[in-house]
């Protein structure tokens, strides 16, 4: 399989882009792929924290682009998985420190060494988002079942569709089955009806996500995390496996039909 740049984005902040990037990176590396997670959120970096690698940072993305460091010097090998690397963002600079051309060139270079380049996009639709989108071969949009998140995801999907890139795929994050049953949350069908793009996975609300992120141990590494298991299923789908949607993941018949007719 050819090397791929996958950008993880959402528009709205706080819906789980960084969590998704870290977990998918680990899940792919566990399956033997060479993976680099690239933090494009310059000035507000935290992928390093979630991955538990903050104290190893010497050089960052901007150092590489401004040629103060070689790419190899800036790449941080994960402490658990030898196939996984992090390219951290600069914390003391701004999004405008780099541009789209530089991002494309950097990712082209990374493609020669890695199977997957996962780009953690900043929130918003401005410069930082455009930098993160520019090198993408594939885009994953993270959305939570809230009206504001869906609205922002719709905006992002429109922006991706305006490029030559393939249609983005959707990660539905933080689903709460009990709230859905009580009718107090948008359900899967509501979200898919508006966004009308292909669903690649549904991740349940899970408190292990918070505790594991705080310890720098993404949930995929835990044995009994429902969210971790969901990210593993998404990683397998990224690898081209046909993984059936589980009970919670099951989109309603109506939603699947709606999706089908849109193709």
């Amino acid at each position, binding site marked *: 399989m050819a090397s791929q740049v996958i950008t993880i984005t959402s528009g709205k902040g706080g819906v789980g882009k960084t969590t998704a990037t870290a977990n998918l990176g680990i899940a792919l590396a566990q399956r033997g792929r060479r993976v680099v997670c690239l933090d494009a959120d310059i000035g507000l970096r935290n992928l390093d924290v979630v991955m538990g690698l903050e104290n190893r940072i010497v050089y960052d993305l901007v150092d590489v682009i401004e040629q103060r460091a070689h790419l190899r010097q800036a790449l941080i090998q994960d402490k658990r998985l030898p196939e996984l690397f992090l390219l951290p963002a600069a914390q003391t600079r701004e999004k405008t420190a780099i541009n789209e051309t530089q991002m494309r060139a950097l990712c082209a270079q990374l493609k020669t060494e890695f199977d997957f380049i996962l780009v953690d996009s900043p929130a918003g639709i401005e410069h930082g988002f455009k930098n993160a989108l520019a090198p993408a071969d594939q885009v994953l949009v993270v959305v939570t079942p809230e009206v504001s998140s869906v609205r922002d995801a*719709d*905006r992002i999907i*429109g*922006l991706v569709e*305006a*490029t030559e890139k393939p249609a983005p795929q959707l990660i539905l994050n933080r689903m709460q089955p009990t709230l859905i049953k009580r009718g107090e949350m948008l359900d899967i069908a509501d979200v898919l009806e508006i966004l*009308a793009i292909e669903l690649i996975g549904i991740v349940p609300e899970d408190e292990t996500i918070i505790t594991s992120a705080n310890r720098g141990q993404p949930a995929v590494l835990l044995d009994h995390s429902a969210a971790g298991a969901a990210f593993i299923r998404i990683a397998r789908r990224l690898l081209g496996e046909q993984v059936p949607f589980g009970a919670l993941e099951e989109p309603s018949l109506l939603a699947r039909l709606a999706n089908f007719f849109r193709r």
Partner: protein
Amino acid sequence: MSTITFKGTRDGLVVTLGENSWTDTISELATQLQRPNAQSFFRGARVLLETGSRALDGLQLEELSALFAQYNMTLAAVAGEGSPPILLDAMRQAPPPPESIPLELAHATPPNPPLPTAPVLLVQRTVRSGQRVDFAGAVIVIGDVNPGAVVAASEDVIVWGKLRGVVHAGAPSNDEAMVGALILAPTQLRIGRYIARAADDKRPRNLPAEVARVREGRIVVEPWSGA
């Protein structure tokens, strides 16, 4: 004075050539494209060229196409008065993308006799949040108009899908225009000089297709049958 207009739409950049001579037009276009802040805006754009009353020959089209190509722009379609739109994408025989030809500029000027029909813009995709379609004429959307999206037209607006964003038909003051949708559930509806907003309580789903028009000084919604 500038005679060439640029208008970004959902489906590409609409470039309208003015009535100047050919040489003037070409040099003005080159100047416009060269402006530093224009370059990033235009880069990679699909160009939908409106030639107005001008008839272009093959050489002139080649010249335009080459000029656009210098700025990584693709000349995708050409439409003029009295001629059907030509889709150059198709002529180049590029492999059709999954949803090919998202837009046709159809100047509805039938050969004879001329009917008093407005131009129609056909939008063959969902208009998403933050996107805006403006058109002097009628607009037909094959797809949804999502919340946060705006469609404004000087004539009717028809949505073959779910209308949940904001639509202004008959903008700015044509009260005769109408809005029809398979599912009519707009955030706000404007027809000519009138504005209506959605009821605050949820309406039942699965209503039949509906149409909204102005009757006796207010916007009225009724089933789309025999209208």
